[in-house]
């Protein structure tokens, strides 16, 4: 039998719009692939036990915890991380709203919360407060800044749904 530790699997992944074909060991977590192989360290590891959601990224648009999925489980997937969301000067509306509403303190949970919020708003641009809170079930903010996070997500939804000119006035 083949020595399993040496077996590599070929997968094609599209990370933040860039297609890559990689030969990866099966025991490599998606979080490890993103952080250690691609140096996309915006995806944070909080608990590494599927509890905190800091490692949340989007897989084909759905939020998942990257510490609890093997990279080889995702052939052909489109993966979006916080690095692909926006850039300084061209922030994503959710990032803008987090800044405006002070929805981060230490910032450790923020990448996961942002990605979770983006997935939520892509599906439902006008979530109720209850829907926002339910959507955040999988993320933990150890600074406990939930009130501002909820407010920011509601504001971001309004911004994303509003016509462009209106959203520019909000700044």
């Amino acid at each position, binding site marked *: 039998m*083949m020595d*399993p530790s040496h077996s590599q699997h070929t997968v094609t992944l599209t990370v933040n719009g860039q297609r890559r074909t990689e030969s990866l060991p099966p025991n490599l977590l998606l979080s490890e692939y993103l952080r250690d192989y691609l140096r996309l360290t915006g995806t944070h590891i909080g608990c*590494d*036990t599927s509890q905190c*959601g800091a490692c949340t990224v989007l897989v084909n648009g759905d*939020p998942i915890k990257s510490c*609890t999925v093997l990279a080889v*489980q995702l052939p052909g997937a489109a993966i979006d991380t916080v690095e692909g969301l926006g850039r300084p000067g061209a922030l994503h509306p959710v990032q803008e709203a987090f800044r405006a509403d002070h929805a981060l303190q230490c910032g450790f949970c923020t990448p996961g919360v942002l990605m979770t919020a983006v*997935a939520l708003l892509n599906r439902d641009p006008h979530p109720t407060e209850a829907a926002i809170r339910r959507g955040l079930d999988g993320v933990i903010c150890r600074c406990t800044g939930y009130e501002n996070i909820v407010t920011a997500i509601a504001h971001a939804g309004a911004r994303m749904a509003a016509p462009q000119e209106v959203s520019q006035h909000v700044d």
Partner: protein
Amino acid sequence: MMLGAFQYERPASLDEALRQAAAVPGARWLAGGMSLLPLMKMELADPPALVDLAGVADLVGVQEDGGALRVGAMTRHAELAEHPLVARHAPLLAAAASQVGDPQVRHRGTIGGSLAHADPAADLPAAVLALDATIEVASPRGRREIPAKDFFLGPLMTALEPDDVIVAVVVPQRGAHRQAYHKRPHPASGYAVVGIAASVLREADRVASAAIAVTGVASHAFRARRAEELLTGQVMTDALLAEVASVVASGQEVWGDLYASADYRRHLAGLTTRQVLERLWDDR
């Protein structure tokens, strides 16, 4: 956290999957990985090989099949929660799926994985029990069907053999039954302290038929047979509900832990059952 090394297979068909698993003693099926990968991280499982079921076409999809609802084992909780056929034919299954864990978990975890894992506080076991579902299984020895009532045997213990793979869950249609799943989640873990799945048929002011399943309370999900017997054929009254509530966990070894004593769990199971029945009764 580095996972130990293992062989990884991603078969495209059921036959291939069964062959690959048979080739490595101790190989485990990988579905959503929401229970298995955490176990491996904690070194509570160390399988030499994982056979990933995600590419096996026979295991996906939700269909109507001769008056029953057929749910492929790889159907993810999020899909189950939102699928129109599930909403129509088995609303309590959709309700239970929508309350599993959190959005991230629901986008990965599957019904097959959840039933096979058989956590004593998991949601879907109660749902399939209350719906009298059948679990379709394949192994190198052929196919067979296991009624949900014979499937759960203990904490993380089921009627599955190690080389059995769940192919689908078949849910008979319950026409005019009113269904609900009510979960009282543990505030930190999100798992059920008590979860009640109920399906009742109302005829005028009588209970024509009732199925009640309970999770979180004993070593595995169970049907509250005594409560069902008390309800069947009776006129719904407050006194009847009170009596029903008092026997929901009867005959069970109710467990207690740091968070909820056995007495509290028994009380909560009765109370929650009563509330679910009241709500279903008045539903239009």
